[in-house]
C-alpha cells in the first residue's frame, strides 16, 4: 500500500509529461516524451547496446574496486593493528586522499592512454580510500572489552584476529564495501562521460552529442536502474550475512 502511494506522484508526472508532449506536438532536440524514451530504451536493449555497454562499465568498475578495495582492506588491517605504521603513513594519506579521482583523469589519459587501464586505475584510486578509512576506524573502535576477553581467555594472535577482530569489524567493512561499490560506479561513468570511449557513460554522452534525447534519457534511466539494483543486492546480502543486529550497527556508522 505504501509503495503504491509512493508511485502515485511519479506516475502522475509521467502521464502529464506524455500528455503535454502529445497535445503541443513539440519536436525537440533536447527532451523527449516518456513513450519515445521507452522505445529508445527497448531498441537499445534489443540490439544489445545496453548489455554490451553495461558489461564494459561493470568490468572496469569491478576490477578497479577489487584492486582499490582489496588494497584498502589489507592496509586497514595492518595499520589498525600496528599503530606505528599508521603514524608513518598518516601524512601521505592526508595529502593524497583529498585529491578527487576525477581530477586525475587527464593524468591517467597521459600515462595510461584510453581504455580499460586508465578507468580501472581511477576507480581503484577512488575506492581505496573509503575502505581504508572505514576499515581502519572499525578496527580501532572494536569494543575494548572484547579485546580484554580475548586476552583473559589467552587466545593466540591468529585466533584473536580470526575469531574476534575480523568478525567484530565485518559489518562495518561491508558498509565500506557498499559505499565503495557506489563510488566505483560513479567514477567509472564519470570517466566514460569525460573521456573514455567505453561503457554506459560513453553511450550516454554520444546520445547527447548526436542530439538523440530519447536514447540519452533511456541511458540515464538505465544507470539509475543499475545503481539501484547493485545497492539492493548488497543490502540484501548485508541482511542475510549479518542479521538485524548488524544492520542497526551499520546504520550508526
Amino acid at each position, binding site marked *: 500500500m505504501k509503495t503504491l502511494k509512493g508511485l502515485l506522484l511519479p506516475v502522475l508526472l509521467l502521464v502529464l509529461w506524455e500528455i503535454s508532449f502529445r497535445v503541443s506536438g513539440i519536436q525537440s532536440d533536447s527532451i523527449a516524451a516518456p513513450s519515445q524514451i521507452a522505445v529508445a530504451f527497448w531498441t537499445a536493449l534489443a540490439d544489445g547496446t545496453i548489455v554490451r555497454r553495461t558489461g564494459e562499465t561493470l568490468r572496469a568498475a569491478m576490477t578497479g574496486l577489487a584492486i582499490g578495495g582489496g588494497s584498502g582492506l589489507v592496509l586497514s588491517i595492518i595499520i589498525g593493528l600496528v599503530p606505528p605504521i599508521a603514524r608513518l603513513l598518516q601524512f601521505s594519506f592526508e595529502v593524497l586522499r583529498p585529491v578527487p579521482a576525477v581530477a586525475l583523469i587527464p593524468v591517467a589519459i597521459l600515462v595510461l592512454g584510453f581504455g580499460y587501464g586508465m578507468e580501472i586505475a581511477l576507480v581503484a584510486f577512488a575506492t581505496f580510500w573509503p575502505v581504508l578509512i572505514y576499515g581502519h576506524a572499525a578496527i580501532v573502535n572494536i*569494543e575494548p*572489552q*572484547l579485546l*580484554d*576477553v580475548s*586476552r*583473559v*581467555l*589467552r*587466545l593466540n594472535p591468529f*585466533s584473536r584476529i580470526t*575469531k*574476534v577482530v575480523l*568478525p*567484530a569489524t565485518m559489518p562495518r567493512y561491508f558498509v565500506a564495501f557498499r559505499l565503495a561499490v557506489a563510488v566505483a560506479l560513479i567514477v567509472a561513468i564519470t570517466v566514460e562521460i569525460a573521456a573514455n570511449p567505453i561503457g554506459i557513460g560513453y553511450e550516454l554522452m554520444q546520445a547527447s552529442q548526436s542530439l538523440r534525447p530519447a536514447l540519452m534519457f533511456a541511458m540515464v534511466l538505465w544507470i539509475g536502474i543499475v545503481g539501484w539494483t547493485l545497492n539492493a543486492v548488497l543490502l540484501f546480502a548485508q541482511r542475510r550475512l549479518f542479521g538485524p*543486529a548488524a544492520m542497526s550497527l551499520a546504520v550508526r556508522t
Partner: protein
Amino acid sequence: MPTVSHADSAPLISFRDVNHDFGNRPILRNINLTVRKSEFVCLVGPSGCGKTTLLRMIGGLLAPTSGEVAFNGHRLNGPAKEISFMFQDYSKALLPWRTAAGNVSLALEANGVPARKRGPRIAELLKKVGLANHAEHFPAQLSGGMQQRVQIARCLAQDPSVLLMDEPFGALDAMTRQSLQDEILRLIAASGTTVLFVTHDLEEAIYLGNRVVALYPNPGRIAQIFDVDLPAKRDQLTTREQPNFLRLRRELYDFVREGEA
C-alpha cells in the same frame, strides 16, 4: 563455607606493596593483601577507589607500576590459565555473533580442547548454569541475567582455580541478582574456587564474602578488612536477618559514610 580453615592454607594471591599510576595520577597506593585458597573476598568502596584496577591486575590485564602481584608464589605477568575473569558489562563481554554455546566454546578453543570434545563439555556447562535450552540463542536474544549466566559458563569452561568478578550483577534487577548470588555460591562450593568479587552493593558483599575489603578513594588504599562471621549456608532471608549480618552492614555503611564525608 567455613571461615576458620582458610588461615591454615598457603596464600594463593598476594599483593606486595603494589602501587599503580595512570599517567601522573595515582590510582592505587601501598596495596598489601593476601587471598587464600577457597576464600571468597569482596572488594567494596566508592568509585575511584581502584577496585576494578585491583581486579584487572590479578587478571593479568594490567601490570602494577611498582610492587608485585603473585599467584601461587609466582609473579604474574599476563593472564593465567587458572584465573578467569567475569566482566560487568555482559552486552560487551560476549561475542554477539556467536550463540551461547559458541561463546562458551571460545574458552575451550583458547585452551586447545579438540573440537569433538567441546560439544558435550559445552552442554554440561550450560546445563550447570541453567541454560540447557538456550544453547543456540544469540546473546541479543537472552535477558541480562541469562547473558551473565553464559559468561559464568564461559569462565567455568576454563576450569579456573580463581574467579574474578567485576560487579557482575550490578546491572541486573534485584530478583535476578539474588538468584545469581546463590547460584555462584552453589557453583563454587562444589569446586572450591577462590573468588574475588568487586561490588558497590554492601549487602551483596557481606552475603557472599568470607572477607570484605573496603577501600578508600583518591588514591585507592585498603582502609579496612572485615571478617564475615556468618553461617556457611547462606539464605537470602535468614542470613540477611542474622544479628551479625546487620551489625556488619551497619559497620560498613558507617565506614562508607565516613569515607564520603
